[in-house]
């Protein structure tokens, strides 16, 4: 297996008596599109929150490129190349779609009180570049026509696309997508995965939480399955399909859900 860009060791997080993530050890191979599956409440989103610093783990470690990043703040991790989207979109509602995207690049000269006054020309150059990049990214996720609309008033599926666009603005090396296709129409999902695979060929690693098994089997390698806070399977998509324990844990629980 390829070297890991991100790995965890015995990572745990409880909410009261509930062990949402229970001693999870896994490796995300560099350059992969890793699929993360599991029934509702398995702990997938919680794991994302632990990997991105949105939640602090009770125990265990997270390594990025072999460096210990356990407990680092989300903003520090974004700057180090981990981008994530949220399962329930979190647009900046009273800002335009374009401004949502333009926010993301780090280290903008104009992001301080004095920057816009002391470094005007540098800021203007940056703004021009960032704006163009944002328009390109929005074009890709088919949101360009909505650039000047309030982000709080676009559809739920469009909000998912905007989340992706914002993350792409930061050029992360590792992108964690929490159900990117939920609520997005199938044709657009195909376009999306096409672009994800294109970015992947250029070196970006993806971890995708997805309930659509067909999607996972076709596009993700390897596949990691969680149930009740634990990793119950790590392997190839083919192995996943042939694994009775996994089918039981996943399909069994979804059938009950």
């Amino acid at each position: 297996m390829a070297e890991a860009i991100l790995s965890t060791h015995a990572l745990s997080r409880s909410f009261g008596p509930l062990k949402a993530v229970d001693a999870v050890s896994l490796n995300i191979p560099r350059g992969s599109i890793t699929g993360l599956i599991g029934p509702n409440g398995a702990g997938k989103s919680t794991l994302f929150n632990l990997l991105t610093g949105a939640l602090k783990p009770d125990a265990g470690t997270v390594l990025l490129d072999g460096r210990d990043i356990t407990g680092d703040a989300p903003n520090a991790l974004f700057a180090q190349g981990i981008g994530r989207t949220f399962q329930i979109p979190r647009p900046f509602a009273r800002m335009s779609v374009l401004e949502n995207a333009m926010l993301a690049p780090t280290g903008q000269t104009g992001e301080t009180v004095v920057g816009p006054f002391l470094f005007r020309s540098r800021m203007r150059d940056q703004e021009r570049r960032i704006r163009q990049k944002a328009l390109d990214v929005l074009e890709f996720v088919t949101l360009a026509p909505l650039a000047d609309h309030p982000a709080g008033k676009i559809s739920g599926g469009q909000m998912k696309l905007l989340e992706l666009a914002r993350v792409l603005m930061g050029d992360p090396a590792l992108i964690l997508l929490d159900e990117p296709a939920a609520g997005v129409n199938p044709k657009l999902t195909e376009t999306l995965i096409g672009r994800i695979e294109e970015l992947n060929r250029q070196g970006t690693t993806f971890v995708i939480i997805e309930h659509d098994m067909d999607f996972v089997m076709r596009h993700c390698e390897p596949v990691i399955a969680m149930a009740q806070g634990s990793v119950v399977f790590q392997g190839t998509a083919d192995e996943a399909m042939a694994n009775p324990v996994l089918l039981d844990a996943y399909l069994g629980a979804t059938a009950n859900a």
Partner: protein
Amino acid sequence: MIGVVSYLVFFATTASILAIAVLGLNLQWGNTGLFNGGVVAFFGAGAYGTLILGGMPQGAHLGGFALFYPLALLGGMALAGLMAWIVGLLTLRLRHDYLAIATFGVAVAFENLVRNAEWLAGGAKGVRGFERPLRAMLGDGFLYNLCFLAVVLLALVATYLFLERLVASPFGRLLRAIREDEEAAQSLGKSPAGVRLTAFVTGSVILGLSGGLYGTFYAFVSPQDVLPTLTFQIWAMLIVGGSGNNRGAVFGAFLIWGAWTASGWALSRFAPVEAQLYTGSVQFVLIGAVIVGMLLWRPRGLLPERLVVSQRGKTPLAKQGV
């Protein structure tokens, strides 16, 4: 005739000074979502700071230090900023309602401090010994007031232009993102705590400027000038004018101050003598009713926030609400 003009000058001066304060609050609340319930403390720090630094030496309280006036004014602003920085470090982790209560408490504490610490701020008798700058040259009359109005208008325009450029910059974008969803902003690499503190301090420095000019105008400040009433008035101006819109903030200041003075005049003129004792209370009820009405029927104010403030895309800006 000259009476009317000089009254208008007086009115415009006060309204413009208040407009500067409303602009400062707008940066905090309108742009960043920080609920400052203690506006008057930072206004007061500016006023007291300016007068103590710029006044003649007094036996009764600290200073004055007879500083060159612009330095005294800057010192007052710095004092307001310093206070905001300390308060901010302690309270900015609090969200919305808790921050409002904490800052309200700060304002009450400030009023009590200046009222009781006579050695510091002269107690109930206030700060004395301040001479208005250039008084020797311009005298005390209409000419002085006219010149002072010009200075105040200059400060208002400068503050307005500063803030307009700031909110249209990436920093403004950052403030709005943090106002909308702090965690999402953090997931995109921003550090909300530092940005909130910066906005709080910057807004408070502007409140301090307003207070400094106010103190200069009256050449006097006392605990009566830092009552919660003023916080309430400044908030009313922002809500009515349009939170998140600098033009709305200025417009609201003139409108509410106009309504306040007009209602005071009307009450003193037409209300029965027994009722005139309660003029202040009646004004409060009126302004309170205006706020409630606005929040019910036009919650975004008379001049609502504009949607696209930094960069816009290619699409025509048709009718778009926020």
